[in-house]
């Protein structure tokens, strides 16, 4: 066990030592003499490493453009029992400069160890590739090289070639300071035949764009670059297949990187100062307005079409704010643009649709709309004007008065929540199931009200009763007192007193009493002798009432009445 372990350890140590001792890093190029538009391969190979090396290629970026890469390759070889492994990183590079170009020393990191490659010098020649360039190139051609601000420049990119090729990828030019619009949408190149200086070429339009400068000065347009796979008819070694018949089957392709020239456009300012209302329109335009109806009802929508036709930087400028009558509600316009596809100059029609709602009846004149534009052909500012339109608005009676400027809208709910707590000054009472005074008081009151009439009735009755009984009680006393009065001389007076006594005593209602009524009333209350006496006296009184009898008889009768009343009073 121990021996085995030691062996293994030793073997490991040795192999490690071997591996470390043999690590080497080298850089290489596949060709060291190229023309400017040619690419070359650059390789970094690391021998006897277990992991991929990492390389910082930033020092290359100022001298070369990386077309592709890095791609990785691993190679393992067994020779006489000993293993060699190599890892390769490769790039395809395009030189940016001409002359002698040095690929600088690069730092390669392999498992925390840094290795340096050796610098490599290559020669980039301007002239050597001329024939090659003449075989394949991109031509960039502007229609103008000096334009006014906002004036259109059309640039056409054409690919010229003498051999068959396919375009792999295209990088479209970038232009700073321009508004660009594609005229010919990028599509697969279609080749036509042409001749330049007696040499046959195949030509394809790759791209066409209309650019509008947005600033003055000398502006550069970056070149357009393309990577093409070019077929090359290389002679092969003589063999079975060396027959023209097989040529088409054994065509080799070569990847080529091509780019157009950098274009330079001189943008010049306008020859005169633009008017205040100028919004940037350059070209040649006409403006037209139209209403969908000339007679409208109040509160009925009318559409106003503003049509802007012409050639120039359409879609890149605004038309001035339109002035509408105060009593008209105007909604923001809808704009649409239709382009005439078959022209290189951007031509078309821009439409604005305003929706007007007249709120008051009347005759309205819609002001003409004007547009100031710069015409590069005549080199001056021109004003295009539409015609004024008259709109008749009739009140059809169903108008709702609305005030311009006040637009009501719903209160929009943003979120729901409960309402806040109540912080009123309240009186908190202990648990109490009894009914409050407020609730019971109407009942009490109503009961009281119901009882009031009855209660009042009773009260009056009792009072009436009490008067009679009081009279009843005092009847004898009052009667005797009245009889003994000095002025009680006449008999008729005495008679009245007597009857008054009986009335009070017997609760009689009638005031006109006579002996017969007295007799009936007293019948049940006194003895017959007394009754006879009373009736006799009453009759006597009645008989002597109006006769002038002697004083003595008068006094006698009064005395008789007195004694009779005293006697009778005991019984009734």
């Amino acid at each position, binding site marked *: 066990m121990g021996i085995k372990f030691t062996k293994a350890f030793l073997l490991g140590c040795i192999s490690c030592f071997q591996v470390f001792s043999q690590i080497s890093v080298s850089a290489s190029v596949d060709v060291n003499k190229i023309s400017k538009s040619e690419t070359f391969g650059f390789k970094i190979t690391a021998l006897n490493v277990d992991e991929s090396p990492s390389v910082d290629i930033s020092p290359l970026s100022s001298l070369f453009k990386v077309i592709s890469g890095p791609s990785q390759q691993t190679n393992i070889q067994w020779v006489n029992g000993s293993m060699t492994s190599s890892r390769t990183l490769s790039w395809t590079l395009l030189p940016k400069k001409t002359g002698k170009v040095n690929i600088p020393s690069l730092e390669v990191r392999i498992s925390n160890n840094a290795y340096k490659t050796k610098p490599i010098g290559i020669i980039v020649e301007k002239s050597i590739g001329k024939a090659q360039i003449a075989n394949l190139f991109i031509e960039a051609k502007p229609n103008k090289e000096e334009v006014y601000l906002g004036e259109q420049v059309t640039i056409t990119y054409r690919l010229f070639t003498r051999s068959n090729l396919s375009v792999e990828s295209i990088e479209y030019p970038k232009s700073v300071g321009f508004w660009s619009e594609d005229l010919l949408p990028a599509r697969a190149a279609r080749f036509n035949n042409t001749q330049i200086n007696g040499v046959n070429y195949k030509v394809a339009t790759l791209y066409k764009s209309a650019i509008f400068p947005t600033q003055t000065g000398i502006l550069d347009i970056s070149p357009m670059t393309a990577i093409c796979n070019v077929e090359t008819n290389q002679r092969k070694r003589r063999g079975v297949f060396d027959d023209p018949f097989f040529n088409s089957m054994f065509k080799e392709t070569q990847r080529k990187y091509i780019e157009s020239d950098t274009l330079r456009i001189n943008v010049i300012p306008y020859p005169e100062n633009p008017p205040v209302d100028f919004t940037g329109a350059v070209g040649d335009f006409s403006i037209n307005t139209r209403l969908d109806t000339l007679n409208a009802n109040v509160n009925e929508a009318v559409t106003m079409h503003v049509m802007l036709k012409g050639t120039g930087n359409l879609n890149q400028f605004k038309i001035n704010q339109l002035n509408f009558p105060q009593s008209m509600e105007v909604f923001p316009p809808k704009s649409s643009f239709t382009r005439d596809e078959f022209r290189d100059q951007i031509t078309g029609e821009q439409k604005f649709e305003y929706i007007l709602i007249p709120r008051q009846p009347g005759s309205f004149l819609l002001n003409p709309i004007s547009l100031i534009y710069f015409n590069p052909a005549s080199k001056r500012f021109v004003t295009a004007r539409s015609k004024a339109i008259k709109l008749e608005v009739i009140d059809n009676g169903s108008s709702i008065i609305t005030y311009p400027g006040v637009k009501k809208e719903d209160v929009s709910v943003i979120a729901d929540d409960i309402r806040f*707590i109540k912080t009123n000054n309240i009186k*908190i*009472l202990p648990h109490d199931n009894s009914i409050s005074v407020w*609730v019971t008081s*109407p*009942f009490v009151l*109503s009961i009281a009200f*119901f009882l009031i009439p009855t209660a009042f009735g009773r009260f009056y009755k009792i009072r009436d009763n009490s008067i009679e009984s009081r009279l009843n009680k005092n009847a004898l006393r009052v009667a005797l007192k009245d009889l003994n009065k000095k002025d009680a001389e006449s008999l008729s007076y005495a008679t009245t007193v007597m009857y008054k006594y009986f009335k009070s005593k017997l609760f009689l209602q009638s005031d006109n009493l006579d002996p017969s009524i007295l007799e009936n009333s007293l019948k049940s209350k006194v003895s017959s002798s007394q009754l006879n006496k009373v009736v006799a006296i009453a009759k006597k009184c009645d008989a002597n009432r109006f006769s002038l009898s002697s004083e003595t008889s008068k006094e006698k009768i009064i005395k008789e009445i007195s004694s009779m009343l005293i006697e009778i009073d005991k019984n009734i």
Partner: protein
Amino acid sequence: MKIFTYLATLFICSSVICQDYKSKFIDANEHYSAQEYLLAIEKYEDILINAEHQDVYYNLGNAYYRVGDIGNSIWAYEKALELSPRDSDINFNINYLRTMVRDKIIPPNNMYLISLYKSLVLKFTISDLILFIGLLFLFLSIKYILNFYTNVINPVNTIINYITIAFIVTLSWLTLDKYWNVSDKYHGVIVASAVDVRSSPLDRGENVIFRVHEGTKVEIQNFQSGWSEIVLLDGKKGWVLSKDIREI
């Protein structure tokens, strides 16, 4: 004299207690405003042990809502609604919270008149109804006095009398009905987040018949040693643990 002393002591005591409640209420409101909802809940509940007021219940409901206890919140609002059924704030909040209750219980479809009657009963407290009856009586009695002394017999008068009496009878019926409802039926709100309703008051696995969630209002029909028999609005019936519901 004795009675007078007794009344005076009662009055003083009650006013002192009132003052105590009021200070507690203000205190609790301050806690609520400071977002110390748990303290506010404690204070409000303390007041409600011996006293009641719709505002206290309402604020308690708010505080419970703020701490996320929807069941107790609805319970408090239901209590507040019982005391003041037409308060717009209470109605707003309880309706808002009812939308958060998970259980959707559709009560059996009633006839229009019956639902109108029920909503009428719900909108008034017993005191309100008794007060209405009292006012109608008062109206009748005043008319009686006027008639008694003016002795005008008018057919319109008679009709008005009959109508008033009809109203009194209707309102009396409403009051009685409401009273029976309040005194005989117990209602409660589920306060536990989810409750299994069982077919019998036994905690066994197989007798779960349905499940209700917090905030659902139920009618309590029966009590039995820690269990309550509940009936949902749509008639579903079962037993739940009494601690999971809070009686209104």
